[in-house]
């Protein structure tokens, strides 16, 4: 009797475990089919040369050699570099400032936060519609305003630096809610008594912020920065919808470079090598975070 019951329990446990893995099935299946396998395949493709109507051929590092010899690729790389770093740190400063501002007493705070979050709900193409409307050459209201003040308008359609500046501005506008929310949520966990005690000990507002608040919210700051890096490396729509990377491919970022290699020139190997490069960049930036999370997951945290 005892053994029978034990056997049934073991059997139950085995079916239970099978059920658990089945429950993971849809999630892991989606990830495998659309992320993991394609990503591995991109790695393999980057060592081959192929295009439509042509057998793929292994070429070793030839794609990488060609990529790194391409001036347009390096232009796209440096454009991405400046856009990403600009976005991340300007957004961090704005987000932190806004979070500190909003953590104090503010009339109709719920409403104010709702407005600050609003750009998060807007699609990238509508965001570009809004900012182009304001910065349209000659007629946009910001362009007209600058003209009246004697300041030259932002020539985003012809000057690649201006294109990337406007694209970065729109990207910051879209994603500031994300950075703000993470930092704001962290700020609300800073214990008031700690700041109060520091104030009584004679710490200035700036000292309280730098020595207590900033240290306590540092983990959230790092998470916000990491995720913004990861997302900013993907920047595509803002630049694409402004100039498609023009004029003369001068405002391309890496995602646009990849898109063009793939869909305009059908150079699968080159597009794949660009993809591997972008993936390597993302992983390099995420490595410290991933290592820490790996330890935490292993500990069962």
């Amino acid at each position: 009797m005892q053994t029978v019951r034990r056997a049934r329990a073991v059997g139950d446990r085995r079916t239970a475990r099978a059920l658990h893995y089945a429950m993971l099935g849809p999630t892991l299946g989606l990830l495998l089919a659309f992320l993991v396998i394609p990503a591995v395949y991109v790695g393999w493709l980057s060592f081959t040369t192929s295009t439509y109507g042509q057998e793929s051929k292994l070429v070793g590092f030839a794609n990488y050699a060609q990529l790194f010899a391409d001036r347009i690729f390096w232009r796209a790389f440096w454009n991405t570099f400046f856009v990403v770093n600009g976005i991340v740190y300007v957004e961090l400063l704005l987000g932190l400032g806004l979070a500190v501002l909003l953590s104090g007493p503010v009339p109709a705070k719920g409403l104010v936060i709702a407005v600050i979050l609003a750009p998060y709900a807007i699609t990238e193409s509508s965001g570009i519609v809004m900012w182009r409307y304001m910065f349209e050459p000659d007629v946009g209201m910001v362009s007209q305003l600058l003209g009246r003040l004697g300041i030259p308008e932002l020539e985003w359609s012809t000057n690649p630096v201006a294109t990337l500046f406007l694209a970065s501005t729109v990207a910051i506008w879209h994603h500031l809610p994300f950075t703000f929310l993470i930092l704001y949520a962290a700020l609300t966990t800073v214990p008031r008594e700690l700041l109060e005690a520091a104030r009584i000990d004679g710490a200035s507002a700036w000292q309280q912020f730098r020595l207590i608040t900033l240290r306590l919210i540092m983990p959230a700051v790092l998470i916000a920065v990491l995720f913004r890096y990861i997302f900013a490396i993907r920047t595509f729509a803002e630049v694409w919808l402004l100039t498609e990377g023009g004029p003369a491919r001068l405002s391309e970022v890496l995602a646009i470079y990849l898109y063009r290699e793939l869909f305009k020139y059908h150079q699968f190997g080159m597009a794949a090598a660009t993809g591997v490069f972008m993936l390597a960049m993302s992983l390099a930036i995420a490595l410290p975070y991933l290592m820490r999370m790996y330890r935490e997951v292993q500990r069962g945290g």
Partner: protein
Amino acid sequence: MGRRSPIARLLRGALIALALAWSGLPILLVVLSSFKEANEIFAVPPALWFRPTLDNYATLWRERPEFFRALGSSLIVTFGTVLVTIASATLAGYVYARYRNRILSGTAFGLLAARMLPPIIITVPLFPILNALRLNDTHTLLILLYAAFYVSLGTWIMRAFIAKLPIELEEAAAVDGAGLPAILARVVLPLVVPGIIAVAIFVVVFAWNEYVFALIFTTRNAKTAPVVIGEMLGTVEGVQWGVIFAAATVQLVPVLALVIALQRYLVAGLTAGAVKQ
């Protein structure tokens, strides 16, 4: 922080006004201008008080039937993505919240690492394959792609919400003879509705607004509204601003309302999914 001197209060007020203008003004201007005649649209300063007209909406309806078809596509794709993501994430989140072994922690870490992958790189192998399988330009493909990029966030959020539930409820149900499916449906599901709402809002905003995949993987049948708005902006014969504003307004109002109504779930979701579990 700090004392309330009048200058500090004034400065604070000015900064908040600036933040409101930065976030809200671009949206407000476009929504207002969608009700203006063409010759009023670029007036400086923009008129805040004017006789509203529905001309732009009428033109949109007459000349851009593809926009409304795309809006339908967006609706189907968003709805489908929410269903697939929530079903997958709830099941997986439950397993991760309640059980622990080496395979589970390995795959949990995999979920996290997958979020670092730049989506555009998977288009390199997927586009030709999906083309050959005739899956391009279908709602199903967009739904699966979008779900694939949001199940990991969804699973982490659901895991965090489920882990907070007292396990005694499930144990009590098990003693009463309920199997796992019954426990999930009758005990767990009703208690994790806030988690489901948090996942849903992230997924709705993403699927409704996504641009790059929709641009690449749709041509006609499954084309979504953000892509059509982008196309209207790129027309050669001069941009019809009023009509674009009407389209942008129609597209943004439902999701903006949703985000504002459910903003507290955004915070809950971000905290559960990104910052710390």
